[in-house]
């Protein structure tokens, strides 16, 4: 395990431990809180319980006292009544006529009836007037008040419950009569409280002997409630427990007090039976427990409220703390995240800087090597040249090698400049209309010789393209293709294969042609590691095989940058010793009105026949021709094609026939002739052939017959049709090829003396004259001075003192001379970029040539612009 990995693992372990300990802390904190709450809950519960118990005990005590108070009040009344009766008895004893005394008595609210039975008689008198006897009264229970016998309760003549006490009237030690006084229970009502326990307590006064309820004091329980006796009380309140009832009976019998819990109308209640006057009277009733425990409940409610408020406050604090902590955590994490990002960025920057530094170092090392190698060759051969100046053959050989080394150096410099320019964002794409035909042709023209030189097969395939006229920067596309293809040639062994495919993909928009360019080879291939860095600048596949290949290592970086600049993508797959496949996907805008329908009408072509063994190829041609409104019939064999042509006799004939060279077969000439004969001579016959197709030239001898290079492009087809059309009209002789520049006279503006000298020397070797001026101003002046036709062309450097090449060109073009607009002006400049070329052309120059001057190229340009014009 590497040190780094070990550190990471340790850190991860530490993190896990940290997490674990955090979790454990959290759990223990949570448990602690639960414990605290449990303890708090327990304390509150026990305090509440204790309060309830104490309050209940206190309430029961209170109830006891209340009942005792009522009892005492009643007993006091009874005692007073008894004592008062004794007093009256004494008064009667003292009176002369006891019966008159009684009769004269007027009832009051307590003593409602007074009667007297004289000793020895069974009947007596009453204050109410009627005869009185003891018959209606029942003293059998034996109850007494202050030793006076008291009767069982009864409903008296007033319709209310009452009792009677009898008292002997004693005169001089002898009982002369018995005094009966009737008392009503209603009188108690005035002395008893207006209810207790907030009038929730129920109370009846019961006569113990009859167990009749004789009074319900005011305020004692609901006014609508009422019971007539103890049995009714038991029944209505569901006191059915025999044991309880027996115990209650025993208490009544023994004049004991009793308290017991029993539900009354669904509510827990404390029932009581309280003996008054030694059990002759009982207080019967109940009080709901909730009324007794009201204070306790209130206290508990208060405790509960306090605890609840505290809990809410606690939880609020917790929530606030939690939010605060979370905010802090978030802020901390943000800070950490920022720090991490900064660190990573720093690390990346450092790494990038290191990589860049390494790359630059490597690049410098490469460049040092790459520049020194050709430079070494230049210097070495120069030395050899000076030594062997006399030997013409050697001089030629040396200069040839010096030239090659110089060209290599130049390409190196161009690439470096290109990369730096793209990377600095100074590249501007120049969108213009171009045809795929031109693109393929120019690429083919460059790559095919290179491939051929290495004995490689170069295959060009174009399929599925719907539009071949497109808008784009042709120069840059060209650059991409040349880069990829030249690499393919470079990194493929001799005799290998290179495929160049242009595939039409499904259009994403009607306005754009979606194209995939594939460059495939079966060459050396690349390692996966190298594939990762292939598009980085200053890298180059290096191994024993490719070390021989020269290059700057910038080509792929440039390619990728250009592709991305165009909004495309580039991908690569490769296997060592199996080859590589580069795929570039690009979208090009389709120019409006690209199809020149008029051309075909003008040419009288409305229908053509295509004979190709490959149905896909036939379809491609049909698709490409679809915009031209030219009908395309296809035949997959020669026979079919001939049949179709013959069938045409009745209908519209084919105005042109395209035949794939590959289906002609072995006896090509004869077959071609056969086809030619099958159609009118006036109609063109074109053979679609690959660049390296053999025997094609032979068929061209046939009249109105030509070839069309594969792949098929409408533009190429159109061009060839025009050519055939022209050749039919003109018998054009082959123009003489200017082999040299002999006799031509140039005006050259070049501020660098060496370059001026080289230029003069080269032109001199070619037999051309040259007049050198040092800047643009002089060039303009010299041209003004010259006679018309004195100079065949002006070779113009761009960067010059006083007046640069562009300004000079504009000045010359602006002159009011007939030849001022015609004379070819050739830019010769070290400003070798596409923009420079554009600027040159914009300034009015005819052609742009990058320095150093390639003499062959110069000759060709001069031929085009000077000789041909002449």
């Amino acid at each position: 395990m590497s040190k780094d990995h070990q550190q990471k693992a340790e850190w991860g372990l530490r993190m896990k431990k940290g997490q674990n300990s955090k979790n454990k802390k959290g759990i223990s904190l949570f448990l602690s809180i639960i414990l605290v709450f449990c303890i708090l809950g327990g304390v509150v519960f026990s305090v509440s319980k204790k309060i309830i118990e104490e309050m209940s005990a206190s309430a029961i005590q209170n109830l006891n006292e209340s009942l005792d108070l009522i009892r005492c009040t009643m007993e006091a009344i009874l005692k007073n009544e008894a004592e008062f009766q004794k007093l009256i008895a004494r008064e009667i004893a003292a009176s002369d006529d006891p019966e008159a005394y009684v009769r004269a008595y007027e009832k009051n609210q307590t003593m409602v009836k007074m009667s007297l039975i004289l000793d020895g008689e069974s009947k007596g008198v009453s204050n109410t007037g009627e005869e009185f006897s003891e018959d209606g009264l029942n003293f059998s229970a034996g109850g007494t008040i202050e030793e006076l016998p008291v009767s069982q309760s009864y409903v008296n003549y007033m319709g209310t419950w009452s009792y009677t006490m009898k008292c002997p009237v004693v005169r001089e030690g002898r009982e002369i009569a018995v005094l009966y006084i009737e008392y009503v229970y209603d009188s108690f009502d005035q002395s008893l409280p207006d209810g207790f326990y907030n009038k929730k307590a129920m109370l009846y006064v019961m006569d113990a002997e009859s167990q009749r309820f004789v009074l319900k004091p005011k305020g004692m329980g609901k006014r609508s409630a009422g019971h007539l006796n103890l049995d009714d009380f038991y029944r209505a309140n569901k006191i059915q427990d025999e044991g309880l009832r027996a115990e209650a009976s025993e208490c009544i019998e023994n004049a004991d007090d009793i308290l017991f819990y029993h539900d009354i109308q669904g509510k827990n209640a404390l029932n009581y039976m309280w003996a008054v006057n030694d059990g002759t009277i009982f207080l019967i009733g109940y009080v709901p427990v909730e009324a007794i425990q009201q204070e306790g409940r209130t206290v508990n409610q208060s405790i509960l409220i306090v605890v609840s408020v505290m809990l809410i406050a606690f939880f609020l604090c917790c929530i606030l703390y939690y939010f605060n902590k979370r905010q802090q955590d978030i802020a901390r994490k943000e800070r950490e995240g920022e720090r991490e990002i900064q660190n990573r960025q720093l690390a990346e920057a450092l790494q990038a800087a290191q990589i860049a530094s390494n790359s630059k170092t490597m690049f410098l090392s490469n460049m040092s090597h790459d520049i020194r190698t050709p430079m070494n060759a230049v210097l070495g051969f120069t030395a050899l040249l000076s030594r062997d100046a006399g030997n013409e053959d050697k001089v030629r050989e040396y200069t040839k090698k010096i030239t090659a080394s110089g060209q290599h150096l130049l390409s190196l410099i161009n690439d470096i400049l290109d990369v730096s320019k793209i990377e600095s964002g100074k590249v501007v794409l120049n969108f213009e209309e171009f045809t795929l035909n031109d693109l393929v042709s120019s690429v083919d023209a460059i790559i095919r010789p290179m491939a051929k030189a290495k004995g490689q097969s170069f295959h060009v395939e174009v399929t599925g393209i719907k539009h071949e006229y497109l808008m784009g920067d042709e120069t840059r596309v060209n650059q991409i293709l040349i880069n990829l293809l030249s690499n393919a040639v470079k990194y493929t062994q001799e005799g290998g294969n290179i495929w160049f495919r242009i595939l039409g993909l499904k259009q994403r928009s009607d306005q754009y042609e979606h194209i995939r360019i594939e460059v495939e080879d079966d060459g050396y291939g690349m390692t996966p590691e190298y594939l990762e860095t292939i598009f980085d600048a200053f890298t180059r596949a290096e191994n024993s095989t490719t070390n021989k290949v020269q290059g700057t290592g910038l080509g792929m970086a440039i390619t990728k940058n250009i592709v991305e600049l165009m909004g495309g993508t580039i991908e690569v797959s490769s296997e060592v010793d199996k080859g590589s496949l580069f795929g570039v996907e690009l979208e090009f805008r389709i120019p409006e009105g690209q199809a020149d329908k008029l051309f075909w009408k003008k040419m009288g072509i409305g229908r053509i026949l295509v004979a190709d063994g490959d149905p896909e190829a036939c379809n491609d041609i049909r698709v490409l021709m679809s915009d031209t409104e030219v009908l395309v019939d296809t035949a997959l064999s020669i026979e079919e094609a001939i049949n179709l042509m013959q069938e045409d006799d009745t209908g519209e004939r084919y105005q042109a026939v395209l035949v794939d060279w590959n289906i002609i077969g072995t006896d090509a000439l004869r077959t071609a002739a056969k086809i030619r004969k099958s159609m009118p001579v006036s109609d063109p016959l074109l053979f679609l052939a690959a660049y390296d197709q053999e025997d094609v030239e032979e068929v061209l001898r046939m009249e109105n017959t030509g070839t069309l290079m594969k792949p098929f492009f409408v533009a190429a087809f159109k061009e060839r049709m025009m050519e055939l059309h022209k050749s039919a009209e003109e018998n054009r002789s082959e123009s003489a090829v200017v082999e040299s520049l002999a006799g031509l006279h140039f005006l050259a503006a070049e501020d660098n003396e060496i370059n001026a000298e080289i230029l003069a020397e080269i032109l001199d070797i070619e037999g051309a004259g040259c007049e050198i001026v040092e800047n643009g101003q002089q060039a303009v002046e010299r041209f003004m001075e010259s006679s018309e036709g004195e100079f065949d062309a002006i070779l113009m450097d761009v960067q010059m003192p006083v007046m640069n090449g562009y300004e000079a060109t504009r000045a010359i073009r602006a002159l009011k001379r007939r030849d001022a607009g015609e004379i070819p002006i050739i830019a010769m400049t070290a400003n070798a970029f596409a923009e420079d070329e554009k600027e040159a052309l914009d300034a009015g120059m005819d052609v742009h040539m990058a320095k150093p001057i390639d003499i062959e190229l110069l000759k060709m340009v001069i031929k085009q612009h000077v000789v041909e014009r002449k």
Partner: protein
Amino acid sequence: MRKENNKKIAVVCLALALMASSAACGNGNSDKVMVKSEKDKEKVVNLFSPMEKTDPDAGNIARAATDLTVIMAEEQLGVTVAYRTYTAQDYKDKTYDDVTLERARNNMDDMYLLNPDTIMALGEEGALKDLSGLKSAENLRDVVKAANIVDGKLVAIPQEVVAYGLFINKDMFDKYELSLPETPEEFLECCRVFKENGIETPIGANRWWLETFVLAQAYADLYNGGNTEAEIAALNSGEKKYSDYMRPGFEFLQELIDRGYVDAQKALVSEAIEGEGEDFLAQKTPIVMAYWGAANAETAYGKPDFNMLVIGFPSKRGQMPVMPMTGFGIGANAENAEDAMQVLDILVSDEALQVYAETNKVISPSKNVEVECIPALKPLNDRIEENVYVLGSNAGMKVEQWGNTCLIVRDLLDGASVDECMAKFDQLQAESLQ
């Protein structure tokens, strides 16, 4: 933003805490006297009324409607109505009516709920105040007024028109394919069928309400023959004898007793509903008699397990409801007579009677109050709506009917002959003529 919010929350919490603490500390009562009892003299009106024995775990439903009106009066007048009550434990005890008379004569209470005979008795004694001056009295139906006027004084006003009827178990009648009896003969036939089918005592009775059979037969013609006033005048003048009216009913009762359709001995010692109610609800007895209100929900026969109907008593004029007039009277010398008058004026106002009638589903004494009755009462109600009924009491008759008939029926139950019973009526009539 978050910090701002936190600050706000903190400020609010602090404010609340401050308020709570200041509220907790701010017991501003600085008086040294803790309780100051204000002894305003409370206005109390004592109401004496009977008490129904309540069911376990239930309020006294019978009083619920009266309570509502009493509360109305208390709220409007600021008085307290205190309830006083008496209920006989058994037949040996003084009756409610006995006690009422005694209490009224001794001015024990201010207001009394009186049965027809006590209204008559106390009215004649002048122990009751004339209530005709009350505003509410103007709303009373004529029949109600007529029944409660003694010596030209309106001495009692009821909260409901009490109608007695036969409570029958329709399911049992249907079981033995018996139609509802209209006449005494049909009634006897029904009883015969029941008896033959093993129902030992087809009629459940108590010591109070058997008189309704007698009264229905006695006065069916008198009250529904179109010559009521003349006939009453004839009775009052002695031209006609009460005993002649009463005889058929007593003979009918005697027959019921003789045939064993009524258990005379049990009836004699049974309080109302207590004696016969249980058997009726248990479907052992198909026929009992009771007052209108007993059919309403939450009362004695409110929720039977069978299809119950309340019909009139058999008479030669068909099913006959018997309506004794009860009512509230105010003691002539009551301690709080004036307050009691005001209370009563509210208790029998249209507003209160509406509440009362809706609560108890009874016939209201006010001509302005109409309430729909429950389905079981419909047969009885239909007859009353047709103005076909017999008054159980009539202050216009010099011999009090409701109480006297009840007592004489008890004699019959106790073994007296019909002739003996008739002799008592003759005696009463003779006393009244004196």
